[in-house]
């Protein structure tokens, strides 16, 4: 049987109390604080949100059943709410009360059996919702929507109002769907199409217009908290607008809404995901991001994850998860554990909690924007590099076999750059570009916090000193700004004072999180040596870490080498001359490691990082080449001097046995071979070309699932620094459990979200579109479909539309078309007095909604009628006039950029467009699904005084004059037609003509004022037009910009 569970039933003489609409809200509001889902505040172990076992369970105090169906006086719940002694519920100190009427309602409900249903929005969406049986003597019904609406109206004893006039409806459809009004030609064209086909033709036409996608996108940008800047205090610009253009395209292509949502939640997890599938996931990264110095990285990373989770909850499920971050939800059955299980879906990307202050790195993870030309060049270079690397490996093998060092006397005459050892300066190592050493007499400056200590790497006394580092003062070298295609190495003696969780030993970088660690660094992390080359930590870097902890309180010789490959396997760490076992921490370096400042090597300290406090270093050497293992072994000798290396080589060559053949061959290849080294140089050149190519590529922030899941944690009281138990990804079972065959990642979450069994997603989606076209949703709290939100005014209609949406394959245009072609939509905004009294809030849709147009529409329609609107679709945001007046003023653009649609206005989160904000746009720092609608004096100032509107008025005036230069009344008529899609009434025309005449006269008397008025903005009226009449016409147009029919949906 069809049950329309709405307030409509209340109008019937005999009606049952409806638990979900009448009793649950009472319990939720007055009882759930102590008897709801929040276990922390749960009293008497009694949960009134579940309703499980209440009919069987006896109260501990009295022994009575909590609820005894049919018998209020035998029900503990009822006796407690009517109690006046200390037993009274809710307790007086809570400040919560039940009124006499409410108590009577509870009584009746128990009398009627105390039935208990689930919260309406958690009930499955019924399939094939039957249409209500409704008598339509007026043939008013045009489609199924109207059956539901009329049925409910009739139950209230209400009737629909008249249809909107043709011009009103045409204008309403245009502005609702594409955000600009019809042109006069369009008005004329449509008036020739007979009704009712006219309206379906108009709707089809509008849904096919590219402006439709722009109009739909502006609402989605609020949901997605879209901004062209990062937000928070520093609020720097960021590059995310390709995502905005994707949204516009997706709406225009009528992408099914489930795919639209799935790609934004988990496009990266689609099989063989293309860039166009990954780009939508930028949605997950649009939250504000922090860069303020001294911020705790993990604190903000947790904020981002929370924001993603809460945005997901509101955007798709219509639920507010924020409360559950810190405690169990007081009202909805979403537990704190549910919350943190949801966050685990959004946790698993390689991101940092802070973006980089000192560089312009795009915070990882990122996707590279496709570029056909660069893509093919990149592929070519990669192939070339692979071939070159292969060639070098073959050469090395050849060297191993031919042992050229045995014939070295013969090659001594070779003038290659790699001459035999005799030619090397005996005291300088090949490729060494710096050597930090402290002799016995060396001293540090008096102000230094570092100090010199004896350097005793072995039993033998060494004639040098070491530095003991304070950790707060760096020792700086003047070399080390290597590019990532250049091989390099450094070596040093070091002494670790104690097991260290983190210490900066040596680095080339400006800072840690403040620079995204751009550069390279040798750290101690969890007691282990770690060597990394970094563009932006953590997602664009190569990094290896020792398997074993570094020994403490003893000298060790450490060398690190890098081969210029931008691969983790091109990094190596040697301890005491031997390569040590390492694990790969990161292996993705696609951008430069230079820039950002801190160009040279520093030891022992880094800006806002933990220094190598108490650590000692000595004999630091830097090499602009990859060192051979043989060289490294020599360097690790306690009393090493360069001459030893030559001796060692000679010995190796002579005996052929001191070290392995591999080492001799490698050493020969790197230092002596006349064939190998030019090839190595060529490889470096290819890598340089590839690197330069990659550095040019534009990146955008996206979601990119990590191959192995990061552990996610429950956070006590929502504190980032209070992780307790590990949680695995999961959904609130109270909505519907995640099917076992769904993957346990964002792809699975997306499937769950758009699964037919999910009771929320389709309802939430159709409700927001209803809100867009009818002013308010069927659920008037689109942000809260939970227990504290409002119930739908027409739950069966909501279910019908949701069911239709799913059945149609989530067809957005079809859903909108259904709404627009309903008689409900096509009503006039007026209604008779009795109806207005009976339905003051228009809950029964007895008329069309009348509200001021959205900010974007108000500005865009002015530009449109002025003939100034720039129709360009995509691209970088623009800065119209009002950004000069923003809280943080910005230089504005010229024409035609200032005439682009408002969707493309540069959105600076901490200082958004003041005109848009005055017109009730939201600031977009958090997900918003509904805008306030206000009428304030500030809006009047915008319409009448702002350059954009004054300039548009002037351009419109010029158009009207050009069309009708002789007859002012005709020009004014055209103006009204352009703006309101109708003719002016005789009285209106009279008023406007009078204003025109006065203003013309005043301008003629005061040419200076006229000139000043004509010079506002970039636009100039054509020189052949008479300035005073056009100026006066512009004043009239400017007046009409403040007119209710222009600013308000009628």
């Amino acid at each position, binding site marked *: 049987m069809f049950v329309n569970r709405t307030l409509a039933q209340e109008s019937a003489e005999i009606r049952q109390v409806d638990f979900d609409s009448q009793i649950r809200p009472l319990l939720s509001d007055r009882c759930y604080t102590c008897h709801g889902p929040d276990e922390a505040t749960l009293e008497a172990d009694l949960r009134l949100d579940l309703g499980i076992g209440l009919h069987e369970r006896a109260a501990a105090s009295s022994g009575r059943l909590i609820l005894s169906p049919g018998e209020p006086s035998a029900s503990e719940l009822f006796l407690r709410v009517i109690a006046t002694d200390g037993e009274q519920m809710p307790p007086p100190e809570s400040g919560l009360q039940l009124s006499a009427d409410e108590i009577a309602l509870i009584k009746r409900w128990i009398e009627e059996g105390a039935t208990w249903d689930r919260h309406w929005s958690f009930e499955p969406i019924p399939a094939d919702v039957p249409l209500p049986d409704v008598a339509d003597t007026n043939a008013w019904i045009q489609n199924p929507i109207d059956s539901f609406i009329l049925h409910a109206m009739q139950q209230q004893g209400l009737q629909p109002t008249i249809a909107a006039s043709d011009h009103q409806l045409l204008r309403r459809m245009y502005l609702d769907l594409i955000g600009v009004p019809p042109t006069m030609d369009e008005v004329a064209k449509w008036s020739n199409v007979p009704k009712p086909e006219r309206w379906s033709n108009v709707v089809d036409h509008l849904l096919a217009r590219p402006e439709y996608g722009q109009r739909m996108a502006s609402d989605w940008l609020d949901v997605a908290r879209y901004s062209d800047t990062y937000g928070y205090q520093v609020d720097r610009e960021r590059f995310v607008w390709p995502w905005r253009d994707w949204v516009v395209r997706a709406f225009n292509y009528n992408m099914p809404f489930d795919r639209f949502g799935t790609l934004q939640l988990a496009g990266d997890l689609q099989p063989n995901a293309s860039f166009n599938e990954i780009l939508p996931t930028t949605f997950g990264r649009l939250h504000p991001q922090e860069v303020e110095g*001294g911020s705790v990285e993990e604190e903000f990373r947790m904020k981002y994850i929370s924001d993603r989770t809460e945005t997901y909850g509101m955007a798709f499920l219509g639920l507010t998860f924020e409360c559950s971050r810190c405690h169990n939800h007081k009202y909805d059955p979403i537990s704190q554990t549910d919350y943190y299980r949801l966050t685990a879906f959004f946790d698993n990307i390689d991101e940092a909690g802070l973006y980089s202050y000192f560089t312009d790195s795009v915070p990882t993870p990122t996707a590279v924007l496709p570029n056909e030309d660069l893509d093919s060049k990149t592929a070519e270079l990669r192939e070339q590099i692979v071939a070159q690397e292969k060639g070098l490996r073959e050469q090395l093998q050849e060297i191993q076999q031919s042992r050229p060092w045995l014939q070295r006397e013969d090659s001594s005459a070779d003038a290659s750059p790699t001459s035999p050892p005799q030619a090397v300066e005996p005291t300088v190592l090949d490729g060494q570009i710096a050597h930090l050493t402290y002799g016995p007499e060396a001293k540090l400056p008096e102000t230094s916090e570092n100090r010199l200590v004896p350097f005793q790497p072995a039993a033998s006394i060494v004639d040098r000193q070491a530095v003991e580092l304070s*950790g707060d003062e760096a020792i700086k070298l003047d070399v080390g700004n290597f590019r990532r295609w250049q091989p390099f190495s450094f070596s040093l003696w070091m002494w670790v004072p104690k097991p260290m969780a983190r210490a900066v030993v040596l680095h080339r970088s400006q800072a840690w999180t403040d620079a995204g660690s751009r550069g390279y660094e040798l750290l101690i992390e969890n007691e282990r040596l770690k060597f990394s080359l970094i563009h932006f930590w953590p997602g664009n870097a190569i990094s290896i870490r020792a398997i074993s902890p570094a020994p403490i309180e003893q000298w060790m010789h450490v060398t690190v080498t890098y081969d210029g490959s931008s691969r983790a396997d091109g990094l190596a760490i040697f301890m005491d001359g031997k390569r040590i076992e390492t694990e790969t921490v990161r292996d993705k370096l696609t951008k430069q490691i230079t820039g950002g400042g801190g160009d040279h090597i520093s030891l022992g300290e880094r800006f*806002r990082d933990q220094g190598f406090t108490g650590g000692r270093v000595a004999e630091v050497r830097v090499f602009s080449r990859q060192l051979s293992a043989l060289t490294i072994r020599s360097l690790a000798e306690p009393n090493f001097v360069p001459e030893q290396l030559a001796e060692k080589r000679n010995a190796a060559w002579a005996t052929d046995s001191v070290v392995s053949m591999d080492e001799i061959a490698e050493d020969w290849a790197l230092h002596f071979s006349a064939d190998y080294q030019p090839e190595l140089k060529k490889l470096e050149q290819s890598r340089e070309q590839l690197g330069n190519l990659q550095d040019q590529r534009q990146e955008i922030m996206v979601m990119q699932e990590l191959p192995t899941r990061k552990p996610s944690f429950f956070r006590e009281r929502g504190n980032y620094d209070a992780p307790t138990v590990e949680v695995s990804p999961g959904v609130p079972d109270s909505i519907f459990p995640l099917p076992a065959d769904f993957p346990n990642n964002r792809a699975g979450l997306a499937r769950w979200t758009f699964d037919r069994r999910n009771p929320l997603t389709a309802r939430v989606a159709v409700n927001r579109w209803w809100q867009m076209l009818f002013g308010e949703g069927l659920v008037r709290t689109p942000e809260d479909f939970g227990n504290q*939100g409002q119930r739908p005014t027409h739950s069966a209609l909501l279910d019908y539309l949701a069911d239709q949406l799913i059945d149609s394959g989530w067809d957005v245009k079809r859903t909108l078309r259904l709404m627009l072609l309903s008689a409900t939509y096509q009503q006039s905004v007026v209604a008779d*007095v009795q109806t207005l009294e009976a339905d003051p809030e228009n809950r029964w849709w007895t008329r069309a909604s009348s509200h001021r147009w959205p900010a974007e529409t108000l500005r865009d329609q002015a530009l449109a009628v002025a003939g100034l609107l720039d129709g360009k679709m995509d691209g970088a945001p623009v800065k119209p006039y009002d950004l000069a007046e923003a809280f943080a003023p910005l230089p504005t653009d010229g024409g035609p950029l200032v005439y682009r649609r408002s969707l493309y206005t540069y959105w600076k989160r901490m200082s958004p467009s003041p005109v848009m904000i005055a017109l009730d746009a939201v600031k977009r720092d958090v997900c918003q699904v509904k805008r306030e609608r206000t*009428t304030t004096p500030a809006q009047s100032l915008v319409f009448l005084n702002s350059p954009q509107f004054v300039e548009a008025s002037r351009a419109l005036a010029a158009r009207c004059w050009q069309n009708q230069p002789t007859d002012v009344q005709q020009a004014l008529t055209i103006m009204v037609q352009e703006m309101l899609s109708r003719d002016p009434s005789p009285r209106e025309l009279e*008023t406007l003509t009078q204003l025109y005449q006065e203003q013309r006269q005043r301008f003629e008397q005061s040419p200076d*004022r006229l000139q000043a008025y004509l010079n506002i903005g970039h636009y100039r009226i054509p020189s052949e037009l008479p300035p005073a009449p056009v100026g006066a016409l512009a004043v009239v147009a400017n007046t009409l910009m403040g007119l209710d029919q222009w*600013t308000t949906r*009628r």
Partner: protein
Amino acid sequence: MLRRNFLANFGYGLGAMGLSECLGAVGSGAFQDSTSVQETTGNPKTPGVLTSLHHVAKAKRVIFLFQSGAPSQLELFDHKPLLKERQGEQLPDSVRGQQRLTGMSGNQSSLPLVGSAFDFAQHGQSGTWMSNLLPHTAAMADDLCVVRSMYTESINHGPGVTFFQTGSQLPGRPSMGAWLDYGLGSENANLPSYVVMVTKNKGGQPLSARLWGSGFLPARHDGVLFRSGADPLLYLNLPAGIDVTSRRAMLDALGALQTEEAEQTGWHDLESRIEQHELAFRMQSSIPEVTDFSSEPQHVLDLYGPSVTDKGSYAANCLLARRLAQRGVKFIQLFHQDWDHHGGLPGGIRGLCQETDQPSAALLQDLKQHGMLDDTLVVWGGEFGRTNYCQGKLAGNDYGRDHHPRCFSIWMAGGGIRGGTTYGETDEYGYNIVQNPMHIHDLHATMLHLLGIEHTRLTYKYQGRYFRLTDVHGRLIRDIIA
């Protein structure tokens, strides 16, 4: 049938009934769709949501002198001789406990204590301690209540200032002034009831518009930011070439058009829309009037110091605050930035005090002379305090202090505050509160109390729950009330 019904009941019925009768008959709020209920201003007084105060108010308005960036309490109000005695010694672990440090000094291996470079003395009959950086404020000591035991939860500016303004570290909640406008409404139809002024040309941590935003309250409760430039309000000035006569003619024409529209359609919300145009028009003259100091006598200007004539300076904003207060503006908030002295504190704070000490004190004196201090609550303070140890190297006379949420000082005066008192105490290191802690929520609760509002009873239902300025916290601090 429908159409006939409509016409009979309404369309042409207006002639007989008249629009005003129609409006009157249906009432204002109940008549309209839910959005246009908000669209009411323009009566001499716009009522707030509270139909009456919860108790007798001691303050009718608030002037909040917000010192953004966090002034050091140890150089201004919280006298700690021990820090000087132990200058350079390490902060004892027993004092620091498990307090989290910011990322700025958290990695410092040494945390040397540092004492104030400025001398302290007791002032007034009350003997209130203040440093010699604040001679003018010190002269008003007997009107002030200095709270030395403020504490907060944030250690960084963004969340810290947001918390002070809205009672929450997270963005999106209404600011104090918005709550007040929502609760109490406005007294002067020609001016906004919540005005914000930011000292011009200051560096330091940027401020964002949401700090005086209405959050989830209707947007009309937003604080109105006065600019220091030509237009105190966005597009307040008429466009070039349009004078008042022309604008009057435009508004008259607009009125005529909309009256005709109303007569034809009976659209109920037209009147309030016209009223907004008229209010905007009135503000075009009321705001230039209130921002014009030419009627102020010289001795008043002298009180505030020479920079009072420099529009947008702190001194000019203080005087403008008094002028707005006189004209019924309920909540006036100044922001003065750049107190964030991580390094170079002695020089930095001296400069900031030179900019603010005299105008702040002048405002109190000026209000007093106008008989307005009794019912005007003035609050001075920043978002948190600063550490008792030096950030970075302690070198000679120069030092810096990091953020410190555990204790800081503010002062309040007028509006029912007990003058000449010092409330709360910190330990001898100036690190922890040892007596009478006062949380930001407590301050908010106490401020609302002085305005006649019980802080738990000014609520707004949003996203399924009742929100209030003090969240689920806040204690009234009776000891500081006269």
